[in-house]
Each structure stands twice: as C-alpha cells, then as structure tokens.
C-alpha cells in the first residue's frame, strides 16, 4: 500500500524547521483502534541525533513516500479490520510533527 505524507508550509513566510538527523526523515505509524501500535517504519532503527535547520519556504512542502506491506512489526500479515495511520515528521520534539490519523480498512 503506497503512503504519502506531506508537510506543507501554508503561510507566506519561510520557516526554519528543526529536523532530527542529517536528512529529513519521517515515520509512518499504523495502530489499531485501541491505539496499540501495529507497525512503525522506524521501529528498532537508530537515528543520528544532530538537529538540522531546514528552511521551508512559504507555499513549499516536504513529501515522504512509503509502501506498507500490511504486515506488523513481527512480519505477520495483519488481520482484516480498521486501522489508523499517521505520518510523523522527526523533529527536535520527541513527539515529532504528526499528521491527523487516517483511517484504513483492510477487508480481507
């Protein structure tokens, strides 16, 4: 399943984002409706801890693409049902900058 996460500067003024690591990175996190994380792209990975000062001009955006194979963190295919997906821009804040959750239904 292709996923696209876009972070847009909808204002007219350039912003300087403080982004974790040397290159902008985003996590994709899938959870069930009880809030339990099923899959995370960055789970188990070690990220560089520098903070990049990343200018994002007015009207510009950053995009991240990822394919989710509908497997959980253990590699097992997930059960049919409803799931929530968030994109999270990795910043200086531990919570990152998260998108609103998007509901996904796996039917069979």
């Amino acid at each position, binding site marked *: 399943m292709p996923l696209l996460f876009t972070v847009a500067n*909808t204002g007219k003024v350039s912003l300087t984002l403080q982004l974790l690591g040397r290159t902008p990175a985003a996590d994709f996190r899938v959870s069930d409706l009880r809030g339990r994380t099923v899959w995370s792209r960055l789970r188990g990975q070690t990220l560089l801890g520098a903070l990049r000062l990343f*200018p994002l001009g007015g009207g510009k955006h950053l995009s991240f693409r990822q394919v989710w194979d509908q497997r959980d963190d253990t590699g097992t295919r997930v059960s049919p049902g409803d799931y929530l997906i968030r994109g999270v821009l990795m910043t*200086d804040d531990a919570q990152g900058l998260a*998108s609103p959750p998007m509901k996904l239904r796996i039917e069979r």
Partner: protein
Amino acid sequence: MLRSRLLGLGFAASAALALAACQDNSSPTAPDAGLPSDRVQSSQGPDLPSASELARQVPGFGGFFVSRDGTPTVYLTRGSSRAPAERMLGGYLRGRGLATAAVHVVEGRYGWQQLQRWQDAATSEAFAVSGAVSVDNDETSNRVRIGVEHLSAMSQVRAALARRGIPDDAVIVERADPIVQVATLQNVVDRPVRAGVQINFPGFLCSVGFNATSGGQKSFVTASHCTTKQGGVESTPYWQPLQSTAPAQIATEVADPVYVRKGAGCPKGKRCRFSDASRAAYINGANQALGLIARTSGANNSSLDITGSFTITSDDCATTGGCLAVGATVNKVGRTTGWTRGAITNTCVNTGVSGTNIVQLCQTFVSAGVGGGDSGSDVFQVTSGTNVKLAGVLWGGNSGGTQFVFSPFGNVTRELGALTTH
C-alpha cells in the same frame, strides 16, 4: 491477497505547520511570543492598528486593550468622540465577530502621544536609578507604569521624574521582581565553553561532547556527524550557541577519521568506524573549560536551565567497547533534552545507522531520554557529588527518544588518539 482501501482523501499534514507559518519566526531558537499578562488579554492581530496609528487618527486616544472579560476597551480624553475609534477598530472587531458597539470607552486623562513622550523621558531617568526594572506606557491604566525592585528606588525614581516635569499623577511606580535572563543549554554564551551546551555549524545544531587536549591543542570532542561531512576533515567551523547570536567562531574541526569498508568486523557493502566522534580545535584556547560539564537542576526533569557544573575526574578505560557493564547507570547532558540518566541495556553492539550505509562498531545502548540536537553530548557516570567519570560521546537514538546510543571513550581514543579530558 489482502485488499485494502483508504477511507478518505489524501494523507497530508499541514495544519500543524499552518499555525507556525503565521509567525515570522525564521530563527530556530527565537523565544515564543509572550503570553498575555494576567491583567489583559492579547490584542495583537493583523488588523489591529498600531497604538501610534490610533493616536494619529483618533483624537483624544489614550490607549486600547482587551479586558479580562474580553471587552475591547479604549481610553479617550474628556470630550472626545467615539466614532473615530470605532472606524479605526472596525476591521479588527469584525474579524473577531464583534460589532463596533462592543467597544467600551473609558475616560482617560492623558493622550497616548503625551504618555509616550513621558515614557521616553522616564526611561532615561528611571534606569539611572539602581533597581529600576521596567518603564511601560501602560494602555490598561492610561499612565506610565514603572517597576522597581525596592522602596528606596521608588522614591528616587519619583524624585527624578519630578525634576523632568513629569506629573506625579501620570506615573504609577510599583514594586516588581527583577527580570532574570535564564541561561540554558541552548542559549548560553558559555565562555569558557563547557560540555553539554549547544554548538552550531552550518545548517545544524549539536552539543559539545567534552573538552580535551590533544598534542597540546585545546579542543572539544563532538560527534563525527556533527561536522560538514561525517568522516573526513573539512575544517567545519563552530559557533556557540549560534552564529547569529555570537558571531565569533570558536573552533574548527581538525580530526575526523574517514569511514572505511572491509575493515575488521565491517559488513560487506557498509562503511564502518568504532566511534562517531570528531575533534575541533579552539581558536582561542582560553575558551576551553577543561573537565567541566554544564549541569541542570536534576536528571530526567526536562530542565535546560544551567545551575552549575559537573567535574570530570576520571575517564572510562581505553578498551574498545568500554568497561561499563549492562545495568550500570550513566548520564548525559545535551542541548535538547538536558540531563538524562538511565541504565546501560546493551554493550558492544554493531549498530546500523538509519538511512545510511554506516555501521558503528561496538557501541553502547542506554535506556534514557534523547532528542535531535543531543548528538555529541558527553556521557558519564556520577562517582560522588558532582564528580564524574567520562564514559563516551552520544550520537544517536531510537525514534521514540527513549534510548540513546554512545561511542565508549575507549572507542573515541582508539580513533582520535590520546586525549586529556581533565
């Protein structure tokens, strides 16, 4: 084959940034806009004319503010018409769903421009007195409000204002707490420079790892990826805390071994080192605070305010992988998450770096907080009081910010050579 579909359109996050985009805040470390005081609500907005514009266009204008209950309030001197004020404030009020009739007019004694002139005069007089804190043309009281630290300053300020011909009735002099600039790991101009404070190199922020002298050269150690290019010397310039706030460069990168393929233990197709560490030489050696680490008020309390220093009195062993065991407690001080502490969970871990072909060999994992910008931080054990044993250099962590990874001191000296740290 599973079949799935997204419920809804697109997958984008712009709302969180849209709010930030309304601020002209291109400086990454600029403070947030001030909160409204407890006396008035903020009346700032794109459609609100400036006080000086209101003073020009509204005869008798003496100040505008939004009261605690949300009522837009304007001071007008006796005999002044409210109509010009309503005209000038109409767009601002409509933008907030209010009619011009909502404006509450209060009789003011003084015009804004007169108060402004008195504020200017009072500023030079008041700040000649020891203990003066603030001088404000206060839109909520139609007076010049002066804050002083103690009673003796109060009488001295009043006397000085009287000499300048400023009516006593036009001024409120009151006791106020002094405004203290708090030095944090992020904003302090730390001279000499201690470990743990923020450093800036082009396009990035990191933390000072520890001060060290090598071959007589006064230096600090930070992460290798806190240089222009991870691995290899590019003479990266460093400022502290920011080039924009302290423009004099403090140090230049002088040592950062390249990452190598096919070395002992290095997986095929990967580039490896035993430490993510580099060394930068101070331009002025007097800026080096050898053996000192900035200390905050406590571990794991999120504070970034500097309250003192740790003193390095010893180093971990020079063995690759270090001599600290799983379960041992270590600490770090870094510019983003401050002082954090936790237990070592894994030692001598060959660690792949997300998004790269780099493997860091024989690294140590710690269950403790970390955030972007903490790279380069000192890692240490507290031995007694504020005395510490240096353990290594932090360079990474997990995406949740709950686990950090550091290169043990022995790995650092294996690659950067012998270092005097205290």
